[in-house]
């Protein structure tokens, strides 16, 4: 058997295919996240809406009907707080976990695309974040109707589906955005909190065009798509937004979807170019 050719004749091995890396990193990230305390923490946070739902079932169904209650729950708790908390808790550590844990070295010394690594990890955190909140929302619905299906009607079911998908979309968008913070900043959480409270929290409430620069405006704009619900958070929002820009909810939906994709691409590209000096 002849000797193998010398090095110069040996072709450079191809990098591991994008799909393979994505799949491996995604699966590993999911397994890792499921074992971490972070999940319990978020699951615990997801209990808060369930507690409120129980309180409502326990004597406030006459004060607020199902639609009004659920709209308020989504508007005040899910969209104003939980989406940000989950986005920060899952999004920021997307790559930051590997950097802080210094295991990033193993990924950077393998023949794999960094963009694939980022995409795999981001997909894992987005899916888990969305699943957790989806579970919370489903349980809320269950708590609302258990023992008394008359509490809800067809309009409510429509509204419920609309609100659930908006919460999930918002969760994934914010997780993607905060993942970029995790790649770009050394103290990403601080910038994430500053963004969430100072920018989204304040600017989204300033009457005029400026609020269209916030994600929260577009999320609420999509939520208001359901014209049929009365006496709810939506009415309140409508009254509040009298002087605000008239943006079609479909435009807002499109913008959020574009943001979801754009954040993923930007994060991957930034991670791909960044140098990590692990000491």
């Amino acid at each position, binding site marked *: 058997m002849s000797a193998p050719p*010398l*090095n110069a004749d040996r072709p450079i091995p191809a*990098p591991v295919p994008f799909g393979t890396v994505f799949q491996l*990193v995604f699966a590993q990230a999911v397994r890792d996240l499921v074992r971490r305390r972070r999940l319990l923490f978020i699951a615990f946070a997801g209990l808060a809406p369930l507690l409120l739902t129980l309180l409502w079932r326990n004597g406030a169904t006459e004060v607020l009907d199902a639609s009004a209650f659920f709209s308020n729950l989504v508007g005040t708790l899910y969209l104003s707080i939980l989406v940000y908390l989950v986005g920060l808790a899952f999004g920021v550590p997307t790559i930051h976990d590997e950097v802080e844990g*210094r295991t990033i*070295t*193993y990924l950077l010394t393998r*023949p*794999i695309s960094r963009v694939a690594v980022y995409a795999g990890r981001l997909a894992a955190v987005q899916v888990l974040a969305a699943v957790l909140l989806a579970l919370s929302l489903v349980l809320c619905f269950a708590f609302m109707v258990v023992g008394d299906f008359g509490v809800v009607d067809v309009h409510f079911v429509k509204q419920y589906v609309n609100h659930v998908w908006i919460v999930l979309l918002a969760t994934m968008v914010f997780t993607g955005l905060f993942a970029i913070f995790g790649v770009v900043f050394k103290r990403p959480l601080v910038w994430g909190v500053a963004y969430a409270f100072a920018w989204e929290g304040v600017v989204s409430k300033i009457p005029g065009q400026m609020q269209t620069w916030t994600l929260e405006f577009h999320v609420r704009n999509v939520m208001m798509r359901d014209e049929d619900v009365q006496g709810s958070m939506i009415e309140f929002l409508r009254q509040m937004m009298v002087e605000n820009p008239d943006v079609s909810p479909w435009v807002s939906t499109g913008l959020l979807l574009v943001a979801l994709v754009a954040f993923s691409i930007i994060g991957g590209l930034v991670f791909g170019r960044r*140098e990590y000096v692990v000491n």
Partner: protein
Amino acid sequence: MSVPTTMGPETPVMRPGTAVLECDALTRWYGQVIGVNSVSCTVHPGVTGLLGLNGAGKSTLFKLMAGQLKPSKGRVLLLGHDLAHDIGLYRWIGFCPEQDALYESMTGREMLVYLLRLHGLSPREAGARAEGALVRTHLIDDADRPVGGYSKGMRQKIKLAQAMAHDPAVIFLDEPFNGMDPVSRHESMALIRELGAEGKCVLVSSHILHEVEQMTSTILLIQNGRILAEGNVSDIRDLVERHPHRIAIETDDARALAAILIGAEDVLGVRVEAPTRLIVESNHPRLFFGRLPEVALDGGVPIRGYVTEDDDLKSLFEYLVEDGS
């Protein structure tokens, strides 16, 4: 299960003398500070020790060679290919980091399989290679325990295992013996020597000189961001003329022997340390040792033993660093 010990089909075969890693005017600066300053050197198959004081640029050079850092100027060639231009080259690289960083929730086997799959190996091949690496690093009995429960020595071994499991051509080991007990240290050193003997290029960065000495006599010494010395320890030692070799001789009559030796051209100086111990300084130790038996016989002064006091890496290191700073 059979343990693969031969190189896989993708790993390049390297003859002795092949230039595996070439640094070509490699420079890296951090803001205003130069970490590595126009370093050009070549690393061949076998074990090479990368030595340097803290802050000498050793870590920076190591990371540049392993492709973890981009050079500000210059380039690193791996088997003639520019490392910066093709991530596929990482298939031929194994890296054992200094930091104690592992995937704590995974078992040793899971971690190896995961990292091997990221090299493009199939699940079956990854499983087989992981098994092989675990056997070679004596971790097979603890393979299915979470890494978070490993001792310090086991953690070092699993890092070593992931660096070699995919049968790379070049293996970078950054302080590989940190925290290891003497037995593990001995086993790991033997493994590294084996890897070098298999024709792999193993680059060991360490500041524990006697450990490096036990694995190799080929060194790369860096100081102030520049290469101070490159090659075989003894050859380098011979070139350090400012520091003549010190040879300690045990004899029955040190003074008598001193009187005989002082006249020779290859002896720069003698010092009687004790009635039976003589220190000779010579710039030509081979010549001196060649003459010594004849001198002892002719002079009638018995010689009980002799040792070259500073022909070790530590002394060489001290001389070179002192001269280079």
